[in-house]
């Protein structure tokens, strides 16, 4: 519950104090300029480092390479954009990744949200081991999780394929869901539930009318995270897949040795655009909502 301006002593203090020291616009000496903006310059270079590969992916989606590998810029072409499914196996691997991603997201979100509610709204014995069990998968290298699951499946004779991939994905997404939803629950004032009880809402009503709507953004964020983790996973999937269940990252991995079709860059660019669009829309909606009122 945010305190509003007049009630917040911090605000009074900050308005009572003189503002930040004025920036001295000294001589246009370049060394002085660099010294004053050193953090900003570092940050800019870091962003270049972070986003350069994405720029290359977008750029090379319009390439018309001369050989099997899409490494050298040859000439501009929109061929790959108009023939996304041309390389054999690419679109089927995309479909498989989407199927696994959706199911793993639903599974991990439901199980993880239940756990997060239990942990932040109930007292129970064995809290410490529960926390440990949730933390461990996040602190284990993927290669260990992938290989140990493979050992399990080989030992008890479960054939590798769609279902083993799904099991693995739900497993490694689960902890991230719990942590994300728990963080949202922690920021929720427990007095809101008490207030609901005080206003004649029974436990079920308090949950669906107060707790759930307020935690929903956290659950949505957790689901998005789970989907992107699942969709992007290579190492664990590679251990638990069969030659007939090739996910999109496995397809990319394979193509890195056989020859990389330009369509991979098209898919990468599309993923980037869709995500940016989603972020943009959600920002716009929350901006509209805050302006309208």
């Amino acid at each position, binding site marked *: 519950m945010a305190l*509003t301006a*007049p*009630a917040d002593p911090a605000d009074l203090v900050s308005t009572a104090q003189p503002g930040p020291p004025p920036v001295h616009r000294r001589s246009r000496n370049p060394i002085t300029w660099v010294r004053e903006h050193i953090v900003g310059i570092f940050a800019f270079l870091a962003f270049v480092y972070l986003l350069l590969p994405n720029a290359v992916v977008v750029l090379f989606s319009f390439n018309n390479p001369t050989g099997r590998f899409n490494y050298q810029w040859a000439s501009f072409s929109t061929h790959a954009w108009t023939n996304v499914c041309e390389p054999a196996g690419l679109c089927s691997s995309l479909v498989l990744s989407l199927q696994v991603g959706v199911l793993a997201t639903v599974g991990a979100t439901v199980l993880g949200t239940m756990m997060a509610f239990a942990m932040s709204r109930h007292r129970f014995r064995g809290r410490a081991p529960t926390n440990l069990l949730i933390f461990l998968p996040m602190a284990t290298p993927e290669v260990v999780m992938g290989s140990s699951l493979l050992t399990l499946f080989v030992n008890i004779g479960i054939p590798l394929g769609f279902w083993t991939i799904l099991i693995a994905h739900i497993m490694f997404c689960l902890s991230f869901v719990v942590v994300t939803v728990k963080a949202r629950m922690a920021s929720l004032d427990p007095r*809101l539930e*008490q*207030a609901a*009880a005080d*206003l*004649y809402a*029974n436990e079920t009503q308090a949950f669906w009318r107060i707790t759930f709507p307020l935690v929903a953004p956290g659950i949505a964020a957790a689901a998005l995270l789970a989907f992107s983790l699942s969709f992007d996973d290579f190492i664990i999937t590679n251990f638990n897949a069969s030659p007939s269940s090739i996910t999109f990252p496995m397809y990319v991995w394979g193509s890195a040795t056989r020859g990389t079709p330009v369509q991979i860059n098209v898919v990468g660019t599309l993923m980037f655009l869709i995500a940016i669009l989603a972020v943009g829309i959600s920002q716009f909606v929350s901006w509209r909502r805050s302006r309208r009122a």
Partner: protein
Amino acid sequence: MSLDSLDPTQPAPVQESTNGDEVSGDLVLTRVTKEFGTFKAVDDIDLTIPQGSFFALLGPSGCGKTTTLRMVAGLEHPTVGRISIGSTDITGTKPYKRPVNTVFQSYALFPHMDVYENVAFGLRRRRKKDVKKQVDEVLELTELTALSRRKPAQLSGGQQQRVALARAIVNRPGVLLLDEPLGALDLKLRRQMQVELKRIQTEVGLTFVHVTHDQEEAMTMADTIAVMNAGRIEQMGAPVELYEAPRTTFVANFLGQSNMVDCTITSTAGDRLIADMHGTSVAMLTARSTVTSGKLLLGIRPEKLHVITDEVPAGDLDVVKGGVITDSSFIGVSTQYLVRMPWGQELMVFHQNRDTARVLAPGTPVTLAWSPEHAFGLSAEQDAHAGVETVDEAAS
């Protein structure tokens, strides 16, 4: 003035209620105790709060007042004891089935609902008819009509406070609980809301139980105050009565300031006690003392003391000579003096600046005088400074 002028068990005139089906009547706590492990937060409390009154539970932090409130709300369960409203026992009733509503300290407004929906929440849960009419009425009463479609985050502190109040009173509960409701507001707004709360309480006629550590707030608003300390009720009564005739040093010190002087009762004369105050004979009313023989603590409020530099005026006064001013501070409406008495104790005096202000410098020899009717006598078997330091603690 009688110590028993207000009998809390006497029910106040019953207010007309719009909802005949509601549980109503006095809120009664019978021998209620609440233990957390080995710690007794509330220790064997008996309390009757008359229907329609504005009742304040006053005490320093940790005195058990909030625990008492939470037990009435159903958020805690008494270890021992019974809570009822009128003839209905609510001790074991779930919070959402009690005819009790709370204005929470931090308001706990539902951030995803607008003002209207927040206020309508309780009515909708109980599937009431005429939700719109009732909500509109309450919004009108609390001057929130224009803000009904705003979200809590878009309201000022005072507006949020009014929403919290509207959300509770719209249900016309048998008892309305207010948990330090003005704590988050700044001083000016708090004064305004005190008046507002009192007005609304008078208009709706509901029983208000107000928990606070601010003695001024309690005295401004409440008809009856119960002062709590260490899980027990020290004294209960009208504000004037508590201030003028405290029965424990805790109450004397927690509500305003008091000078406490060790005395020994020597004789009685009519309705008066004669006591020896470090060699000076002083008189006080027997009715205003909790002890009638042996040692006692004579209490006198700083504003009741007169500082005299020349002739002692004639009249019915207790007079003690030989004081020396050790500190004086001019604060506008009054001047505060610390006066060192011959027996070493420093007494505080507030001198009203009715005439042209004349501040006496430290070192000035003075005589102190007061009317015997203003002194009160307390048992000497208690800490004379109880409740003093807790004031600072509660204020912080």
